[in-house]
Each structure stands twice: as structure tokens, then as C-alpha cells.
């Protein structure tokens, strides 16, 4: 019974601590919004094609070529591409570099020379593809014309009528996280790991307030105090994590996949890991200031290398080691694999790892408490 009384007291104190709530709730929700909105392009697999304008200079020696070009410009004009011949006095470099035109092309008997804009690479690529298709069909037509004039004329005539100068082939891509989806996961796991701070101060606060004396003088065991405080701390931190998950899901419409309960279970084990780590560090390093410093350094490194602020990929050497040591790395990778690839096994591995490490630190805490006369 004393266990529940201590747990309830812990929850009550946490609920009344506005700073804790601001930190545990407002911080991830605001960061999710800021980073999600600010870095949306970095995650997007979609691109809206803007205005496509081709500036060109054509010198045709053959009527067929001229006719074919006209047909081609009409055809791509219907697709929204504006094709404009260069006027005397125009500097094509300036026109393209300033973004007024997407690309510049010269068409003559030597072939087609293409100069695309480095600013609008997608639009420039589209134009390039169209011109390549045009050149291929023209080359095929002229080659056929030499062998059989009738066939060649027919090819050139119908080639211009074709609209599919760009044949798009898309693989059925798996769903990928957008920026809000990514930061919903990374901020939630980061805030779950931040449980380490309150856990680290669980007994330090009792010592600082001198209430540890009353707890020790009461007819309850050290084990009951430890379990009661842990239950309260895990509950309140899990509640914060749950609120952040639900907020991201229903307000930001972040995607959490088809295994929602498994996601929550993984997050709960991460909170357990963080609370055990916090307690362990708090007891292994007796000075509260030193313990707090270690926790904060660990958190910052774990957050950074774990990809909380931006995804860290293709690492080498020491950076790979550091990223792999971050609990956030394990949990983020596993959760993303679960959410987007339905890889359940990856999450169970991380759950096992979290619980294993939590158990080790809990054992260390219990040994430390048993060896001490007071907290």
C-alpha cells in the first residue's frame, strides 16, 4: 500500500510542476512543428513542376526538320511548355541563370545542344528528356528516309503527333516518412529518453528537501520507496509520451503505422530504460551536480547522434560507433522500420535491449541502495 501512496505522491508532484509539463509536452510538440515545417523539403519525395520555358535557336537546312520541330513545339506546348526563339540582343546565359527560362537549346544540322538551369533541375530534366526523345525520333526518321523515303516520312509525321516525349516509369515505392512523420517519431523517442532527468533527481530531490529522513524513518522498506517512486515516475513520463504521440497523430496527422500498440509498448520500454539509467547514474555518482552533468551530456549526445534533430545516415568510422551507441538510434530505426516496413522483429529486438539494459541499471541501483545506510 505504501508503494501506491508513494507513486501517487510522485504523480501529484509531477502534475503540479508546470516546468516539467512545459518541458515534456510543449518542447516536443513545438520542435515537431518547427523542424517538421522547416525541413519538409529534405524529406519530400514529391516535386511540383513549375513553369517550363525553353529558349531556343534553330537553324534548319531541311524542310522536314523544320516541320518536325514545329510539330514538336506545338505538341509540348499543349503540355504546358512555352517554347520561345531567341531574339537578337538576348543573352541566353543571363536568361537561364536568372530563371526566366528553364533551358536554352540550339538545333542545327550538327545536332541539339542543351543548356539547362541548375536552379530548376527537375524542370530542366523534363525539357532535356523531351529534346532527347525528339532527337532520337528525328534520327530514326532520317535514317529510315535514306533507306525508304516513304517509311521515313511516315515516321517523322507520326512522331510529331506523339505526346509521350517523356515516358515516366515509376516503381511502386514503399511509403516513406515525411518531415512531420519523422519528427513525430524522433521527438517522441527523444522526450521518452528525457525521462532520465526526472529519474536522476528522484532521490536527489528527497535528499535536498530533507524528506528522505522522513521516508527512511517510516516503517517501510527501501525497496518499497524505490518501487513506488519508479512507478510514479514511469507513469507520468509515459503519460507525457502518450500525449505527444496522440497530439502528433491527431493534430499534425503524423503517420504511426498499423502496429500502434506495439509502438506504444516500445516507447514504454524506452521510458523504463531512461528511468533505470537515471536512477542508476544518480546512485553511482553520489554528487547530484556531477550526476546531473553526466545525464545532460549523455542526453545531448544521444539526441544528436540518435537523429533527433535530423536524420544521420551514411556515417563512417567513429561517427558510426557514436550513432550506434545512442539508444535513440536503436529505437528510431526500429520504429521507422515497424511503421513503414511492418518489420515487427526489429521492434521486439529493441524492446528486449531496452528491458535488458534497464534491468542491469536497476540491479546496480538496488545494490547501491542496499550498501548505503541512508539514500
Amino acid at each position, binding site marked *: 500500500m505504501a508503494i501506491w501512496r*508513494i507513486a501517487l505522491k510522485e504523480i*501529484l508532484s509531477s502534475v503540479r510542476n508546470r516546468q516539467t509539463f512545459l518541458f515534456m509536452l510543449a518542447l516536443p510538440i513545438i520542435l515537431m512543428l518547427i523542424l517538421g515545417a522547416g525541413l519538409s523539403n529534405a524529406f519530400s519525395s514529391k516535386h511540383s513542376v513549375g513553369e517550363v520555358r525553353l529558349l531556343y535557336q534553330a537553324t534548319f537546312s531541311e524542310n522536314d526538320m523544320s516541320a518536325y520541330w514545329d510539330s514538336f513545339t506545338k505538341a509540348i506546348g499543349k503540355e504546358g511548355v512555352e517554347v520561345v526563339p531567341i531574339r537578337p540582343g538576348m543573352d541566353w546565359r543571363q536568361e537561364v541563370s536568372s530563371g526566366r527560362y528553364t533551358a536554352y537549346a540550339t538545333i542545327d544540322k550538327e545536332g541539339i545542344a542543351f543548356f539547362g538551369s541548375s536552379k530548376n533541375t527537375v524542370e530542366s530534366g523534363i525539357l532535356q528528356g523531351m529534346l532527347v526523345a525528339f532527337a532520337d525520333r528525328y534520327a530514326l526518321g532520317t535514317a529510315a528516309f535514306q533507306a525508304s523515303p516513304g517509311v521515313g516520312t511516315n515516321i517523322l509525321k507520326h512522331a510529331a503527333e506523339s505526346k509521350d516525349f517523356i515516358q515516366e516509369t515509376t516503381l511502386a515505392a514503399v511509403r516513406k516518412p515525411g518531415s512531420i512523420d519523422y519528427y513525430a517519431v524522433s521527438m517522441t523517442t527523444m522526450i521518452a529518453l528525457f525521462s532520465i532527468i526526472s529519474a536522476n533527481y528522484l532521490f536527489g530531490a528527497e535528499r535536498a*528537501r*530533507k*524528506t528522505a529522513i*522522513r521516508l527512511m524513518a*517510516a516503517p517501510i522498506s527501501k525497496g518499497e520507496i524505490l518501487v513506488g517512486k519508479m512507478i510514479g515516475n514511469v507513469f507520468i513520463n509515459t503519460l507525457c509520451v502518450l500525449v505527444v504521440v496522440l497530439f502528433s497523430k491527431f493534430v499534425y496527422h503524423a503517420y504511426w503505422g498499423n502496429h500502434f500498440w506495439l509502438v506504444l509498448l516500445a516507447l514504454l520500454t524506452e521510458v523504463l530504460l531512461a528511468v533505470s539509467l537515471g536512477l542508476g547514474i544518480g546512485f553511482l555518482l553520489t554528487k547530484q551536480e556531477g550526476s546531473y552533468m553526466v545525464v545532460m551530456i549523455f542526453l545531448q549526445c544521444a539526441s544528436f547522434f540518435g537523429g533527433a534533430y535530423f536524420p544521420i545516415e551514411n556515417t563512417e568510422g567513429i561517427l558510426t560507433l557514436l550513432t550506434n551507441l545512442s539508444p535513440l538510434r536503436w529505437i528510431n530505426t526500429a520504429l521507422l522500420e515497424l511503421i513503414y516496413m511492418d518489420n515487427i522483429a526489429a521492434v521486439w529486438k529493441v524492446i528486449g535491449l531496452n528491458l535488458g539494459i534497464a534491468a542491469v541499471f536497476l540491479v546496480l541501483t538496488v545494490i547501491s541502495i542496499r550498501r548505503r545506510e541512508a539514500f
Partner: protein
Amino acid sequence: MSHVLEIRNLTKKFGDFIAVDNMTLNIGEGEIFGFLGANGAGKSTTINMIASLLRPTKGEIVLLGKNIVKDSKFAKMNTGIVPQELAIYEDMTAYENVSFFAGLYGLRGAMLRERTEEALAFVGLGDKHQSFPKNFSGGMKRRLNIACAIAHLPKLIIMDEPTVGIDPQSRNYILQSVRKLNEMGCTIIYTSHYMEEVEEICTRIAIVDHGKIIAEGTKEQLTSIITDTKEIWIGFRADGAISIESLQGIAGVTAVRQEENTLKIVSKSEVNNLNRIIQQLIKDQVEIRSVEEQAPNLESVFLTLTGRNLRD
């Protein structure tokens, strides 16, 4: 008188340092027992062992006939501790504080509510039960500190400096509360740096020094120890430093201490050395304002026995 607490050959070591050295002591039922000792004398260590906060290295403590190490739960159920420093939660109301700690002693439901309200009313905080301690004065916090220790109606209450840093009105309230608790049948162990408090409320006093009890008894019994001693109080104008060493060198003088503008000199009563003391002060160019000879009191007993001030 039956003994509520029996301390037998109690020793506590921290490494090589002996904090409590083979202490033996009995405290009877209904006593207000004063524990006097300078800082580091072993008083707090003894109190912490009685409250089961520290384990004895040797010896035993028996509370109400049971060894407190073997019957730890029983001992804790029957003991209440009022720590020297405030041990309350600032983010919980007065009621929640008392109720939480009383709940740890097994109180539940209506009984818990009743005892919590009684404890708060006892310390005069009945009308403040929904207030948070952060809005309390120092005296009110001290009273709440006491309420948290008494709601479970312990047989033995340990009060470690319960009046530190509070106004005289709150101090009087607390001292009255101590007396009332005692009248209700509680045995109290009381420590204070204020000698007059100990003199006023304690029925028996022990003086602790270097981990040992060097004297024990009623106030009268203790002052009778030093019948061969007198105390001379000399008021002076404070301009410069007084040379304590030169006074200590005078024949018969056993201890000298300065408290603001008063020199308190303990001397052997059979030696007539007042003239020499005054001559020395004149020689040191001290402007004397008054000279009084005091009957021995608890403070002079403490000073004579330990050679130290209680506040040292």
C-alpha cells in the same frame, strides 16, 4: 518509572572515527529528555540511530522492550522524528503533507483523515490545511514539520532543534506544543542550541561530548555538579578585540567566552581573582561597564564540563 528507551553500550564508527563511544542511557516514560552537545559531539548520530536512520556499529537500542534493529518496523511505528531541517513537500498542501507521511505508518481512510486533521489542529494549522507551505512563515513551516511527525501518535518523539530560526511567538507555541504532547503521554527527546529552552522544558538532560555522555540528570542535579564554580559576567564597551588568552592565564579561571559586549568567565569559586581579572582588562584598555557574579546555570555547567560553548 518504566523505560521507554534503553541505550546499552552504543557505539557508532565511521571508518576510524568514533562518533558515539560506548554510550549507555535510559529514558523513562513521560520524560522530556534534553540532549545537549556542541556540533560534532555525537548527539545527531545518536538520534539518527534511535530513529533507525543509522545502524549501530555495536551495542543495542531497546524501544518499549524491543530491539530496534531486530524489530525495526515496531520501532519505527512508535517513533516520530522532527528533523532539524524542514522536511516537507512545498508542492503539497499542509493536509497532503501530513496525510502522506501518516499514510506511510499504515493509517487509512477515516482514521487517516481524523488524525491528519487533529495533528494540524494541534500545531495551530487547522485553518491552513489547504494552503501550500511555500506561503507559510518560518514558524508555520516548523509547526507543519512537527505535525508530520505526530499524526501517527508515536510513543517516542525525537525533536532535533525544532525552534531554529523562528520568531519568539512561534517558539513559544512550539514549546507549549511540546509540553502538551508530553501531557498526552508522549516521551520526548529534545535537542536545542538554546540552553534556556532546554532548561525550561526538559525534565532530564544529558550532556554529550566526544560521543560520550559526560553528565546526566535533572537541571538541579547538573548545576550541583559545579558548586565549586562561579561565573563572572563583565559588560564592556566594544571597541577592539579582547585578549581571551590573557584572562585564561589568571589563576582559578577555567573558561572564558565572549558574547557580544559581555565576557562570561567561569572560575573556581574558592579563588578570589576578580581584582586580577579587572586589572587585566584595564591593562588591555577595556572600558568596563558592569560586573556581575552569577549562580551556576546549565550553560556554565556545559562550559565547565566540555570547555566549549553549546554553539561552537
